[in-house]
């Protein structure tokens, strides 16, 4: 049986309400998972995948012209 680390300690996943979500922008793809007991959030994990970082020193491109 799968367990989840929560604010109440290790709990069986079957005893929790699971909520998941995701959002995608031009810079990141993010997923999160939450576990709830009644109205109490007991676990939230987030995975942010950076798609592209801004270039450093783009002004140097002018020199390369």
């Amino acid at each position, binding site marked *: 049986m799968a367990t989840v*680390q*929560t*604010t109440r300690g290790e709990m069986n996943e079957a005893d929790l309400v699971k909520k998941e979500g995701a*959002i995608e*922008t031009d*810079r*990141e793809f*993010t997923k*999160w*998972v*939450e576990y709830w007991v009644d109205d109490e*959030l*007991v*676990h*939230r*994990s*987030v*995975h*942010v*995948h*950076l*798609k*592209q*970082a801004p*270039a*450093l*020193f*783009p002004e*140097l*491109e002018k*020199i*390369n*012209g």
Partner: protein
Amino acid sequence: MANSQALCTSFKVEILGGVHAIGTPPTRATTAKDTFKAALFEATASLGAGTTTYSTSGEVTGAGYSAGGITVTNGTAPTSSGTTAYWTPSASLTYSNVTLTTAFDAVLIYNSSQGDKAVAVYTFGSQTVTSGTFVLTMPTNDSSTALLRIA
């Protein structure tokens, strides 16, 4: 043939490798690579281009998180493609079993071997974590998406 004005691509790679000291170079205790760290900052902080060094001001606090953040895995040497030099940490940044209840939206990469000097700030959608894990997966290490790129 004709000459063409350019910032040499090899120089860009060597900047990332610390080869050139145009200013007064720091005193290095060893010839080993520097250690870089990644610290998370609350959405109300004001990090940006003006950030010069790591500071705890505005840094997240919470169970399981140590001030200063975590060490960045640096297993890939800087390289280049075309005229762009680039480098990306070789592993995701993973903050395991933390509780960060105040919203955060930025990570500061800094050089803990050189006086905690700032390298770059990256922002993302505001998040909180509760008894969970925050993973920041790096972009593809290439000339168009790498974490550090000198174009």
